């Protein structure tokens, strides 16, 4: 008479290994990505050979190819964006303001904002660019 042997229990170590891998991937993506240039629309910065490394922190104003704006990832209109940035500049005069504009965005959507910021005393306004052939 043959008695069915119970199936051997799977070792719990396989789950630990899975968690290890997921944790590793999580830390990897947190390290190589940067979250200070996000926008709810597609933004491909212009290419430039003379860009300098961009530090973190500050405020990011994203401009889409059609002129839509987003401040720190939240869609805004031009008036509200300027108002909020000026309020932050009043608290923090050396605030770094990044203009992350799409390379096909027309300058009439971008330059008035920079002029407003500069007129209100912003000292650190930078354009976000990317080196040629980045990401290829």
């Amino acid at each position, binding site marked *: 008479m043959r008695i069915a042997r119970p199936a051997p229990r799977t070792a719990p170590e396989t789950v630990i290994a899975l968690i290890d891998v997921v944790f590793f991937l999580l830390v990897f*993506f947190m390290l190589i*990505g940067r979250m200070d240039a996000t926008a709810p629309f597609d933004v491909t910065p*212009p290419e430039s*050979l*003379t860009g300098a490394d961009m530090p973190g922190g500050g405020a990011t104003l994203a401009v889409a190819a059609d002129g839509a704006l987003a401040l720190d990832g939240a869609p805004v209109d031009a008036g509200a964006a300027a108002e909020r940035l000026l309020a932050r500049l009043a608290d923090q005069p050396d605030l770094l303001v990044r203009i992350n504009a799409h390379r096909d965005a027309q300058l009439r959507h971008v330059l008035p904002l920079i002029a407003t910021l500069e007129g209100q005393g912003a000292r650190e306004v930078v354009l976000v660019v990317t080196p040629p052939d980045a*990401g290829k």
Partner: protein
Amino acid sequence: MAEMLSLTRPRPSRAPVSLVPMIDVLLIMLVFFMVTSTYLDLDMIPAVDSAEGAAPGPAAAADGTVLIRLGADGRPAIQGRSLLHGELAAHLAARPDAQVIVLPTGAATMQALVSVMDTVTGAGVTRMRVVRLEARP
């Protein structure tokens, strides 16, 4: 008697903590960071002259002032003459101390402006300013 009973009672075995919710949370965080981050190599170029000490007004420009207009087609022009970027670089390299003013039309793209700023900076010019026309109310 009661004490002896309590001493011999076996400790209730703890229910094993399930690792599945933890894996769920980790996976959600992983997907969140993968989706919200940008992985482009991002650099910056200054858009505002942060050196307040350098008076932008009629300060002595040894080589004069060069006005570069930027048309809607992205071509820079000096004194009405449309130039290629190589010609612009050659023109500017001869007068590196000039004050360069870039006047782009509002219909030009960001890439056109950044390319001109690249060329100007690459030609050794240190004093550059981007201006725009504004309708007087």
